[in-house]
């Protein structure tokens, strides 16, 4: 019994020692984009630091109509596209690790809900025959993107301020430049815990 108690105390001491040596006291981060509200949109992101330089996270965004001004994929197949919302898992590498200033590179995935107008929509009329109309079709599409940014850690590393430029394409396009959209772009503020 005494031996077990000693082992338990040693284990606690070891854990506390590791905690004290942990160079990353804050491994979790939530942030939001300060610029998106100017375009009738909003986003939130959660990020988990994995080590000295790497982090993974999940972002979600809801886009208003003004956000279309930031996209160049709004004309497509003779119709128009409007991305309504989007979920973006991402991974980052911070080139300066956990220092107060670091630039970073981000790779992101994208699952976006899109309204595409000008599409052929087939319905069945009262007589049981098919009829096509031109209308709006909603669907989910996937994509990949990249981003580059710079991060500042403030107020005992609890407050995050970062600037990022991100570009995302989708799997329905012919070429990345023709159907790209700016995502996760702007000035972000976050809290680490």
């Amino acid at each position, binding site marked *: 019994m005494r031996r077990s108690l000693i082992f338990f105390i040693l284990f606690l001491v070891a854990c506390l020692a590791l905690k004290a040596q942990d160079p990353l006291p804050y491994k979790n981060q939530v942030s939001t984009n300060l610029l998106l509200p100017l375009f009738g949109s909003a986003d939130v992101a959660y990020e988990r630091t994995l080590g000295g330089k790497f982090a993974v996270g999940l972002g979600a965004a809801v886009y208003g109509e003004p956000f279309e001004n930031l996209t160049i994929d709004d004309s497509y197949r003779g119709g128009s596209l409007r991305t309504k919302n989007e979920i973006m898992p991402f991974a980052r590498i911070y080139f300066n690790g956990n220092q107060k200033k670091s630039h970073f590179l981000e790779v992101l995935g994208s699952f976006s809900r899109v309204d595409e107008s000008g599409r052929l929509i087939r319905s069945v009329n009262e007589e049981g025959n098919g009829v096509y109309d031109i209308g709006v079709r909603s669907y989910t599409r996937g994509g990949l993107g*990249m981003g580059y940014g710079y991060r500042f850690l403030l107020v005992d590393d609890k407050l995050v301020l970062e600037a990022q430029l991100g570009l995302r394409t989708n*799997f329905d396009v012919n070429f990345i430049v023709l159907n790209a959209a700016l995502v996760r772009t702007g000035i972000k503020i976050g809290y680490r815990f």
Partner: protein
Amino acid sequence: MKKIVICLIMGIVLIGCYSSDDYYDRTVRLQVRDVITFTNDKEYQVGDTLRFEVAFSRYLNEDGFSSPLDVFETTGAEAFSYGFDLYQYSDFSKRFEPIFLDSELVIGSKGEGSYYFGNGVVAELNETRDTYVSEVGVVLVESGTFQLDFDFLYFTSPFNENSVIVSIEYVRPSDGTLDLEFSVVE
């Protein structure tokens, strides 16, 4: 690190090049068979009129759907335009050469501004408004060996930027039942 960045950029570009290529420009494409009736007398006199008829329902089957497509309600088209070809055998080239017919020699309804290949006519919705029909005649003014040609024949609804277009491809029977070669003598 530079290699990693270059690989990431190349990877995304390559994935961006993947394309479903399902561009369709608001056109519904269908196929029909057995819609042309041509009674070939094989030998005609100069001055005779060659005749053939086209008739297809406004309700057409569409691949992938159990309900037939109402092409009239879809397009509002009172007529579908199409074109046919006539070839004449040439001893010079030892093959059939295309003939572009003077419109006065073609008897039948002709659409204006329609999209078709060859000699253009239209199939109009009949009085009962359930079938598009076209009765075409060609006045034979020259002797020789000829051949009607219905390959690459598409019945097309009028183009309108704001409406659906239906393009119906005619699929010629592969068993040779549609004999299109004939001769004209003085």
